[in-house]
């Protein structure tokens, strides 16, 4: 196999895993409430920045990672409690503006708590590159891919085997029916913000040693995660993962073979093409309109 190609493949899968985690967050919240949470990217930023701060105070890496995920989850839960829950009958546009306001608020807060500088997080297990099939891969990439596999397994256990997971799945299929069989849909929405924030934070911590982190990394990562969610099919968990990986790969290949300056355009072009020709995404369910 062409070694250059392997290199792009590895880079694409690494970035794609991060997009997939962000996309999962969008889909989880969308399923529980039909809300698109534009603050999803900020969870990625909070995860990365919190881990950097915790490591700087001398906390060992595993505890710093856990701490960062907890901090982001608390922010996610507060966002649901203090903002989204207060606007129960708001329409799509209003909710979009509320969550965009939240993302600006969180970015401003990050600027105050931390600063505007770019921070590196030390890699989990050294930075000596590994040669795989002619490509050189940083060990952190393997952490990202490995974590992705573990998270997919954990999520399928959560949604298939636990009561809360099943309740969330039921709510996504039919909110009213879920309510009628006794599921507390308000609690499902609350939990979905916590889970989405935790997934975002994990993505942020995983990618911080490779791309570094700062108060504004959430904007682009959030938008690309959204593009990935649309590409795979908004609301579909398998779709979010497929969408993230496909987006990461296409981006990496186009950066390598076409133009690296237009790398960021690729995600949005693909999204537009998908929206024009197959709005429900690769794996999304066909939705009918009720009159």
């Amino acid at each position, binding site marked *: 196999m062409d070694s250059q190609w392997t290199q792009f493949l590895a880079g694409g899968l690494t970035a794609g895993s991060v997009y997939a985690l962000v996309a999962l967050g969008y889909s989880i919240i*969308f399923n529980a409430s039909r809300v*698109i949470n534009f603050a999803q990217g900020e969870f990625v930023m909070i995860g990365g920045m919190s881990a950097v701060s915790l490591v700087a105070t001398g906390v060992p890496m595993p505890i710093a990672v856990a701490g960062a995920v907890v901090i982001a989850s608390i922010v996610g839960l507060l966002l649901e409690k203090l*903002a989204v829950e*207060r*606007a129960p009958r*708001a329409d*799509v*546009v*209003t909710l*979009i*503006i*509320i969550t*965009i*306001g*939240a*993302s*600006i*608020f*969180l*970015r*401003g*807060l990050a*600027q*105050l708590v931390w600063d505007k500088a770019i921070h590196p997080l030390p890699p989990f297990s050294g930075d000596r590159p590994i040669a795989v099939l002619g490509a050189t891969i940083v060990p952190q990439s393997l952490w990202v891919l490995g974590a992705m596999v573990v998270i997919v397994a954990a999520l399928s256990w959560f949604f298939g085997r636990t009561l809360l997971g099943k309740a969330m799945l039921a709510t996504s299929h039919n909110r009213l029916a879920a309510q009628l069989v006794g599921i507390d849909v308000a609690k499902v929405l609350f939990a979905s913000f916590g889970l989405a924030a935790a997934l975002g934070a994990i993505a942020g911590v995983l990618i911080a040693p490779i791309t570094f982190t700062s108060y504004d990394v959430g*904007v682009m990562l959030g*938008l690309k995660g*959204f*593009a990935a969610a*649309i590409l795979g099919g*908004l609301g579909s968990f398998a779709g979010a993962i497929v969408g993230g990986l496909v987006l990461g790969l296409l981006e990496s290949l186009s950066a390598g073979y076409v133009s690296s*300056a*237009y790398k*960021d*355009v690729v995600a*949005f*072009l693909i*999204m*537009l093409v998908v*929206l*024009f020709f197959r*709005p429900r995404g690769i794996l999304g369910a066909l939705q009918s*309109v009720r*009159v």
Partner: protein
Amino acid sequence: MFASRRQDATNPWWASSRTGGIALLALVIALAPLAISNNYFYDVAIIVGLNAIVCVGLNLLIGYAGQISLGHAGFVGLGAYGSALLASRYGWPPLAALVAATAGVALLAFVVGRPILRLHGHYLAMATLGLGIIVSIVISTEDGLTGGPDGMPVPPLALFGLVVQGERTWYWVVGGCLLLAVWLAQNLIESPIGRALRALHTSEIAAEVAGIDSARHKLMVFVVSAVFAAVAGGLTAFYAGFITPAKASFLHSIELVTMVVFGGMASTFGAVVGAAILTVLPQVLTLLKDYEMVVFGALMMLTMIFLPLGVVPTLAGYWRRGAR
């Protein structure tokens, strides 16, 4: 906002929303210079006017037709850069450059509008967002043409041989354009097209059953709102004499939508008020320095939670209840 009055044929002209509101706006524009003393305030007033022109157009799309766009800064940016490039690089007369750039934007909106406007809700939001981001990245990347992230200089606007210069002259030019924009919007709203738009906002299917070609109407209002944005963008470029990609950014698109929703959807004067408040507010908030973003974000959330209808319709509601 004056929905109940519009039907009343016995109302005098000054109480109807079209003429009365425009007269009030003209009065505010005419009298404001008495209160504003230096060029800084003129500058803020001009930016308010330019943003208001975009918002009046965007409100037709969001407030009346019920179609969201998170990419209108892209049209502002294309209007600005199109005018700037034609005027500086190709030596076109500024006014011709502005008209040509606007026509180009209208054509683009017409071509991409049809597939985009087939989408609804979040999908429409995302498609317009994607379009806006692509435009903004292209502007930032093509630095040979646009100067990239550093921006590019723009020659001054000349009308019939006279160069428009200085804040005070620009104030009247922008004020006149804003009045024209509001007048056009109000006329459109009260025409059969406006009624068709409101019908398809309520229910697209019901509107189609009633014989309204919803695709054509949505496309038309999309093009009109893009034209408003392009004209304002071109004027902004000529006024500032310098243009950066920030005008075309995703964040500016969000600011524009927030202005419309903050002021009050389906209210042309709400769009103007929203543009005014949210243009002046960041100027005031710069006094807060590092706290600017936190306060701005918090205000966005709080307004949408507590005044979901927007400032103007909410206040108008109180006014009507009080008057009764």
